[in-house]
């Protein structure tokens, strides 16, 4: 069992655990942050699978734009509820 195999297994198990946490989070903001962490780990697994182009796109879209838009939406919804 090489170092590469160990890293792959650790990243894979962490992906599953964080996906489970993301769908079971009680607060929506926590779910969004777990989703962002999931994207970051997906980037690591794409690099391990030797697909750096997909990794860069996933890093930008998945953990950058989508997370920021979700956070903005949650802030906006909270502003409406308090009024």
């Amino acid at each position, binding site marked *: 069992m090489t170092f590469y195999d160990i890293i792959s297994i650790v990243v894979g198990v962490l992906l599953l655990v964080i996906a489970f946490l993301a769908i079971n989070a009680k607060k929506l903001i926590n779910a969004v942050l777990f989703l962002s962490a999931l994207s970051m780990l997906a980037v690591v697994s794409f690099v391990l699978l030797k697909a750096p*182009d997909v990794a860069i796109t996933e890093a*930008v*879209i998945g953990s950058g734009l989508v997370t*920021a*838009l979700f956070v903005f939406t949650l*802030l*906006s919804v909270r*502003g409406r509820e308090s009024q």
Partner: protein
Amino acid sequence: MKNLFGFLISLALGIVLILVLADTSAFPAFGDVNLADRISEQYFNITNVEEVGSANLVTAIVVGFRGFDTLGEVTVLFISALGVAFIFGGVKQKRLDLNFKPNFMLRVGSNILFGIILVTSIYIIFHGHLTPGGGFPGGAIIASAVLLLYLADDRFRSNVKGFKILEGVAGSVFVVIGLLGLVLATAFLQNFLPVGTVGNLVSAGIIPVIYVLIGLKVGSEIAGIVDNFLTEEESA
């Protein structure tokens, strides 16, 4: 109890999937795939790649061999941006009221980060034919830099009209380059510039030019979508 049940079902499903798919002819072990079975051999034949001149094989396929598909992809993005603008865009617009006031540190820090992110995106766009990345991720990085400014300043609005002009000009120049390929070479979007040495910054003919245009277009489009999402029509 419900969580445990779901966990057991997904675990069983995962094990079954792994056992069924591992090491069959459709899913060989990682690294054992014969690429010629999956994609056309022309795409990674070394003489063809040297003709296109892009050191990054993915870029050679996306912009070099399949430039017409990329034009379609950019058009799809344009249509989705148009749809968002059609639904959300009104005459009089103001920023969405967020229950959130940015403090001094956030404002100054994100102004510094904006420059760094912009430089990174320019690097990724200009090195699209050499390193991983290219026009689409680089444009998305530009858009996320704009989004950061929206987060940091609750009065900030990007100049939407300038973005729309930039987007239109970039898309038109892309088509004009394709037509020039039709006139100066033999086919639409065919390379008509000298290829140069593979691996140099100025090489690969029209690929860097097209990727810069795609980066500008994607960046301005997604920034426009972000602006549409974060503004609303003035009620009064």
